[in-house]
């Protein structure tokens, strides 16, 4: 059996040539995302907002209307009900109650006692306002520190220009993921933050692989114009980029469709992140290097005789 090649050997897509188009698209994506996050806002889950969430399963297909009117008669403020995964599963969200934590706990008990006895309580989550605030801070800190450490690592391993390119691409991926969640209004919770951080890891992983090839080609083709060199680097790694993205997407689609309702949103964020992360490595991270004043020799070890034979300079176009 002959192995399948997703990307033919002699592929030479002019990615870098069309960079302005990609920049325009990405700028629109990022600005749109920022507008969506600021304008519509993220639909924060109880992890961040505080409040109560109860997941119940009924023995018959749930009569959500009946449950809603029962619960709304309780004078607990806004209570939202939503089918969750199947028609017997209902997610009940109770808004934060006036007063201290004790009031919130009381509300859970009232709701539990109001629903019919044959209802199975599958999950109860309560997050008080204190913890919610702390979780927000920890989330922001985690994302911030992860970005910073990645930046420092790339700076250390490459040149600062690569670090800048990587962080721009990374921010692009994170902001557009936030934008997606603002637009589709799916719940933004702790699992989503985990997804965002994983996207950051994946996106940077992808970018580093392409940068690695750029660095290698910088040493190899001493006289090739940078734009052409970048394009060759992207095409060189295109096969790997698509292969890895596809295998990861296969696994994520398995989680999305079969992993249960709790993980579905997590998988959705990741799927988006992989797609946009792959795109940004190719269309943003590499072409951006053209504008960072990257010079040949910045990253040169200098003495070619130290390199293995295959690392030494090859004449342009070989």
């Amino acid at each position, binding site marked *: *059996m002959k192995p399948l090649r997703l990307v033919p050997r002699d592929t030479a897509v002019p990615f870098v040539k069309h960079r302005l188009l990609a920049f325009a698209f990405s700028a629109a994506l990022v600005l749109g995302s920022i507008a969506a996050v600021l304008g519509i806002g993220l639909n924060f889950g109880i992890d961040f907002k505080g409040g109560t969430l109860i997941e119940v399963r009924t023995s018959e297909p749930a009569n959500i209307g009946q449950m809603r009117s029962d619960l709304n008669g309780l004078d607990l403020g806004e209570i939202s009900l939503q089918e969750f995964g199947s028609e017997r599963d209902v997610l009940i969200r109770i808004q934060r109650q006036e007063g201290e934590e004790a009031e919130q706990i009381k509300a859970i008990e009232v709701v539990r006692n109001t629903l019919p006895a044959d209802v199975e309580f599958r999950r109860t989550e309560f997050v008080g306002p*204190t913890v919610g605030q702390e979780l927000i801070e*920890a989330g922001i800190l985690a994302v911030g520190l992860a970005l910073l450490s990645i930046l420092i690592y*790339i700076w250390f391993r490459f040149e600062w220009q690569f670090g800048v390119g990587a962080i721009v691409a990374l921010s692009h991926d994170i902001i557009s993921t936030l934008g997606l969640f603002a637009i589709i209004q799916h719940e933004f919770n702790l699992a989503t933050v985990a997804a965002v951080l994983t996207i950051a890891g994946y996106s940077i992983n992808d970018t580093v692989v392409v940068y690695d090839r750029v660095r290698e080609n910088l040493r190899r083709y001493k006289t090739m114009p940078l734009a052409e060199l970048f394009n060759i680097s992207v095409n060189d790694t295109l096969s*790997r980029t698509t*292969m890895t993205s596809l*295998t990861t997407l296969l696994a994520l689609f*398995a989680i999305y469709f079969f992993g*249960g309702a*709790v993980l579905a949103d997590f998988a959705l964020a990741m799927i988006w992140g992989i797609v946009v992360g792959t795109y940004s490595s190719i269309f943003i991270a590499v072409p951006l290097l053209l504008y960072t004043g990257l010079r040949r020799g910045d990253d040169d070890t200098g003495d070619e005789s130290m390199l293995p034979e295959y690392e030494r300079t090859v004449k342009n176009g070989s």
Partner: protein
Amino acid sequence: MMQFDTWKTILVAFVCLAGVAYAAPNLMQKGIGDDLPMGVPGKQISLGLDLQGGSYLLLEVEADVVVQERLEAIVDGARRALREARIGYVGLGVEGDAAGFTLREPADLERAREIAAELDSDATVSVEGDRVALTMGEEAIRQIKINAVQQSIEIVRRRVDETGTREPLIQRQGIDRILIQLPGIDDPQRIKELIGQTAKLTFHLVAVGADAGRPPPGARTLPMLEGGDIVIERRVMVSGENLVDAQPSFDQNSQPVVTIRFDSAGGQRFGRATSENVGKPFAIVLDGQVISAPVIREPILGGSAQISGRFSVQEAQDLALLLRAGALPAPLTVLEERSVGPGLGADSIAAGEIAAVIGLVLVVGFMVLCYGLFGIFANIALFVNIILILGALSALQATLTLPGIAGIVLTIGMAVDANVLIFERVRDELAAGRSPINALDAGYSRALTTIIDSNLTTLFAAVFLFALGSGPVKGFAVTLGIGILTSMFTAIMVTRLFVALWARRRRPTSLPI
């Protein structure tokens, strides 16, 4: 020639065997190997509460209350001492984290300062004009809080143990928080009720005839359980600290009551107080509320007493339990609660397994399709990788959560990345005109730096998730982090071993890649 040192072969074999040894118990019946010490193969992966069902409660000890009580005790002490020493004062009270009073006669300053210095060894005495203040320093407050939390944990543990919960985990978090994990409990309502009361029991004499609106000094007004207010003397006759036992029982009218027994000191004090006050009412105070205020008909000398208060049977049982376990030094507040029923936990495991199997089949098929024989090598490494992850989780006794399962499935997708990098590199080298063996060698050595760079950056994200994430998210970080390390190992070592063995035996003239 593909070099693969003997020591590397041994290392690979050893690691794989260790992985199998640690992972294998998970296939056996649940609960096997629970008693084995840490680090010995045989332990199973411990499931998070979201998978096995159970409750997670985060409590805050309102330790400020303890500090306030301490300051109020200083005030009480100061009142008595100043009165005894016949020193005139005004404005005695608590302000912020200081207790203080102002002298009527500045001449009393030296004596007042001496008295103040003896009131509480942790407080710092300061004088400003003719005002004497006792301030609790930051260190003293911290110590008071730490003690209060320590004590609370002890009491909470006793109360939870009384309910018969199996394997509760109760530990301190931060300075003033307590984390409780209750496996198998999906409605922690009863536990919350039990820990929601401080259960501070005191007996006081009732200040008969006092005005509830303006209680005289040394007395205070408290609400009654059956409604209305009552004025009691602040001085405690005897308190719950002197209890040795409390049991639910019934009185002569078949009403549920709690029978308590005092220790010898408590019994004596109670006996003396009741002897001296026959015919007067006394108040039984629980958590700032007067449960009942019976009249003392005769001295109670036996060291035991009954608390009646229109309890239900359950209430009497709970009160007895609380009194036996002891009073909390300060009220506890539930900051966070996450409970998962056993049904959802089992469903989550099942869904996670299905997702993992389907993800695995897809990835494995895809790899064979794209890389042929080398895809099979990568797939063997993938299976080794999964075994190593499960083995590492068992060995480290890390908790597997639902997001953790997602982490494993994600790792299945990402784990092949290192192999993809290598195989693509080998293809490049072949295309550049290298011989098959040369291409393999060059492919592996050149892909290595890329693999390390790219995986390390993902590892950073996992480390920060672990450090700053909470609960289930931590579980995700653990599997992701372990997955990155094991996938680097399997790609660099395991597939390479297979490829080297294959190349040595076949001496290929072309690569099926």
